[in-house]
């Protein structure tokens, strides 16, 4: 069963186009969506959660068309946007009362146990919450209506390392159930590197790469050498490079590099930076 299936998705805005995206996320897995600001991450997430309509293409969430079966799909996904939008004056307890009438499967006990776990005060007004608390509250809401798919837009940005770690722990717990799946966008790549099974790179509305994380890490490596050495490598090996005065650093395809070169481990961040760089230079 697939948690998300996106087919030929296109959405045009005046100054931005999300161009023909194809994506599949199996259940039981986590996919990280990485991209610069304005690359189309939030647009993709809004399209999946049905907040905007696509110009063309189809989206299936847990096997159901997200437009035709919107009511059911809405129950099955928990969405966390980069800002929490609750009325300013209400408390977490009142949020629960509202959600009780919003979601068929609202689980009050689960919600309050999340509040306790995340040390959120149930009676404090939302406007007095810190940024971290607001984010934690949205996550608690998203997790408390028996959602099978979590869609998270930058859930960890602007949060301190301790809170980020707590939140990651919750995601690790959530994904222990193999019926569950997570789509998470972030530009804090180190968070994603731990959690994700799949990584998708978005750049200017186009999907550059969508691949298993382990494969990405295995296939790529960082090579540090002299510029001349790099020029002598067969074409297609180098996927992007940075020339400095004292040497050159390049992202290379590990298996295609001749023996004798010393390769270093590439991180997801390296792979992302170099892919975007070479896409900008028009080589990708």
């Amino acid at each position, binding site marked *: 069963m697939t948690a998300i299936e996106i087919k030929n998705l296109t959405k045009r805005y005046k100054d931005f186009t999300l161009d023909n995206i194809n994506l599949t996320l199996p259940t*039981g*897995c*986590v996919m990280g969506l990485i991209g610069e600001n304005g690359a189309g991450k939030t647009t993709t997430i809004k399209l999946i959660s049905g907040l905007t309509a696509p110009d063309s293409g189809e989206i299936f969430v847990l096997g159901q068309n997200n437009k035709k079966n919107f009511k059911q799909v809405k129950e099955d996904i928990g969405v966390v946007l980069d800002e929490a939008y609750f009325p300013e004056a209400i408390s977490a307890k009142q949020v629960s009362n509202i959600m009780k009438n919003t979601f068929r499967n609202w689980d009050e006990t689960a919600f309050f146990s999340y509040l306790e776990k995340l040390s959120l005060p149930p009676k404090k007004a939302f406007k007095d919450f810190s940024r971290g608390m607001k984010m934690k509250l949205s996550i608690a809401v998203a997790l408390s209506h028996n959602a099978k798919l979590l869609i998270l837009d930058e859930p960890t940005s602007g949060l301190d390392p301790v809170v980020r770690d707590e939140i*990651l722990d919750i995601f*690790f*717990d959530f*994904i*222990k*159930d*193999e019926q569950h799946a997570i789509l998470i966008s972030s530009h804090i790549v180190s968070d994603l590197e*731990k*959690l*994700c*099974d*799949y990584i998708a790179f978005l750049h200017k509305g186009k999907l550059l790469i969508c691949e*298993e*994380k*382990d494969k990405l*890490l*295995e296939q790529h490596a960082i090579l540090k050498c002299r510029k001349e050495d790099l020029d002598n490598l067969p074409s297609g090996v180098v996927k992007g490079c940075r020339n400095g005065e004292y040497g050159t650093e390049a992202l290379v395809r590990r298996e295609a590099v001749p023996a004798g070169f010393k390769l270093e*481990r590439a991180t997801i961040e390296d792979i992302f930076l170099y892919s975007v760089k070479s896409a900008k230079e028009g080589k990708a």
Partner: protein
Amino acid sequence: MYILYIYSRSEVTVLEIFISNTSDQPIYEQICAQIKAHILSGKLREGDPLPSIRNLARDLRISVITTKRAYDELEHQGYIHTVPAKGCFVAKQNSELIKENYLKQIEEHLQQISELAKLCGLTNDDLIEMLRVLNQENL
């Protein structure tokens, strides 16, 4: 990073797995190598249950696919077997296979020794003498 596992056998076994995020060795190989070492050392015995893929991934804070790959590799090499809907268990160990494994490792080390010996001009007799002295000390 490390984890502890307690198995319900007659006695309690503690199994530790350390994952290094900075090592050059891929994470799945690190898991593989350590579980293998536990099996070869006898800490894990035939029929012992292994942690479920999802629990292990959660405890080590790594992705599910990485963990699955480690288990697949172990199963492929005959160290563990999967019972559908029950989980993974340590397989019956073939002593010949284990011996073969050790032999291979010894060969690899000997290869290195012979290269080093060539570099500093040691003869075969010198090497044999060294080994004899070492073994006597260990006794």
